[in-house]
């Protein structure tokens, strides 16, 4: 193999084949998919997200939640994700249309979050959990995200958004309260928005047995 053009051509063509198949093809197909109109309500599946939840995706990315939490319910019966209660049905391409970026994830050091908003719709639960995870689940190895919160002296009336029920070593002393930063509020809004409980024709729910 002494011929540069031949080497170049071979190197080009082999690589171009995968570029066409694994980049150009999904870009043209999945990249142009549209949400499904919901005739009953005039809305769409997947539903549009609030601005706060969109901002929360950035906080999720900045703090690397994806390195421990996946967001996908894989095909059954190849996987047992549905039987494990990660969601009522497999997640399909349309579910991710509004995700930016798409947090499919590669680790389950922590639980899958595809449907965390359906499992835990309570804001205060999420704030308490992010502030001191071990007081919510004592065996959890999630790090505390205290740096997204502010401890402050209560001035007159307690703040409306102060976290309720903190009890761990970082709980506020009497006369103090812990309030979420804008980032923490956005993150929790995003987490609560994670629900794949709407119907999609391409991913029917398997019958319960």
């Amino acid at each position, binding site marked *: 193999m002494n011929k540069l053009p031949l080497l170049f051509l071979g190197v080009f063509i082999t690589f171009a084949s995968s570029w066409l198949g694994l980049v150009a093809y999904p870009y043209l197909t*999945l990249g142009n998919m549209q949400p499904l109109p919901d005739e009953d309500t005039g809305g769409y599946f997947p539903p549009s997200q609030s601005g706060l939840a969109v901002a929360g995706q950035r906080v999720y990315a900045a703090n*690397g939640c994806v390195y421990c939490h996946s967001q996908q319910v894989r095909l059954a019966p190849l*996987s047992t994700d549905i039987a*494990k209660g990660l969601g009522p049905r497999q997640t399909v391409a349309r579910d991710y249309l509004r995700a930016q970026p798409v947090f499919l994830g590669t680790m389950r050091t922590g639980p899958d979050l595809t449907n965390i908003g359906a499992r835990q719709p309570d804001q205060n639960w999420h704030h308490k959990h992010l502030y001191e995870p*071990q007081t919510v689940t004592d065996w959890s190895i999630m790090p505390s995200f205290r740096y997204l919160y502010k401890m402050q002296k209560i001035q007159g009336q307690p703040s409306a958004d102060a976290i309720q029920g903190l009890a761990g070593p970082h709980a506020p002393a009497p006369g103090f309260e812990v309030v979420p930063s804008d980032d923490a509020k956005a993150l929790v809004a995003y987490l609560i928005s994670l629900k794949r409980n709407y119907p999609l024709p391409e991913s029917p729910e398997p019958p319960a047995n």
Partner: protein
Amino acid sequence: MNPQSLISSFHPANNPDTLASHERAEIDASTRFPVLLFFASAIFWLLIGSLLGLISAWKMTHPGLFDQMAWLTFGRLRPAHLNTVIYGWASAAGIGVGVWLMARLCRVPLLHSKLLISAAIFWNLGVLVGVMGILAGDSRSIEWLEFPGYATPILFIAYAFIGIWAIIMFRFRRPGHVYVSQWYLFAAFLWFPWLYATANILLVWQPIQGSAQGAVNWWFAHNVLGLWFTPIGLASAYYMIPKVIGRPIHSYYLSILGFWSLALFYSWNGMHHLIGGPFPAWMVSASVVASIMMFIPVVTVAINHHMTMRGHFGALKWSPTLRFTVFGAMTYTVVSLQGSSMAIPSLNTLTHFTDYTIGHAHLGLYGFFSMMMFGAMYYIVPRLTGWEWPSANAIRWHFWLVAVGILLMVVSLSIGGILQGLAQFDPQVSFRSSLDYATPFRWIRGLSGFLLLGGHVVFAALFTLMLLKVGRQKEGPALFAAPVKPEAAPL
């Protein structure tokens, strides 16, 4: 040309246009500054990267460690570790080795060294800005592409310089045989900018919509391993093994088969990271098939290297270069066959979301690639500095610390990962169990990190002494023992 003369012309030393030693010295001298610059920065990032990895590892068992500091949270440290070792260490070391090999094999003194020096400066600037960006909270959490959008153009400029340089070198090479290492290097230097530009445009600068991102992400990430690190690692092995034992590569034809099958199959592997995910079935199936087909290039290269080494394994006792390189070559076979098996859907669903994958990644990037780079550096640096490694004992420490360290890490993560996966799979078992099973093995992994870091400190110290030319000048190379003349190969 009959096959016999083709085979004998295959080894650089047997080439009719083999270089005289003064020509070799002249070529080596021309590569000195850029190559040492890449090596020095690579070793610096290796130390930083090991430290970041070590802290991340201990955070898995001690979640409270540094948890009040945003920039040291696990979700920032882990990508900072990964990107530091991928771009700061492995890529820079690979470029340094690749540049030196290209100059030697093109048989001309290095042209346009300013292009490479600028590349090295841009490179390190890009890594620095990128890692700081991740720690500061600008990561987009796209695996292997966490560097923020303002850092990647700097890296891309560096890559572009290197690609242009490689084409120029290849164009102005001295006529004669093109050695197998050159095919791999030429391909790697062309594939990388394409890979990196595509992924950055579609994921970082103008992100595309929906799950197509996942496909592009893993097409990129797997190809960085398969079409950037692997060809550079193999190029090094194809050069170092015959060089040290003084014997040509076993088979020219196996080399051709290995090269083209790697180019074709590896580039299609990426989707095996997304089995059962939100993608058309054919894409995943194509990647599973391509992953299994990787048996061909892997076994081909393994046979070729093994047959070359046959009868010369005694050289592992005295040659540091060979010991690291052969460790890397053997690991390449193991990790690649393991990778093919991990693409089998039923096994993949079990191990995919567990520490098993982390173990596999470290076996590939460290056990194979990094060991290969250490081996090459032990060969190259004395030829650039005109100084010998100051202590064979220190090299021995380096080898055993990192060899034991990486094996301990991979074995513990693999066992822990399988237990974790079984717990994740069984609907009757709670999520907590998957953590409880993995935890003791994470402790062992944390300990293995100290061994690796220790080995790197030894290596960095040795390299610094080489640059400063400390100690008295040694007369011969630093070997573990006196080289034994091998008996006639039983071929």
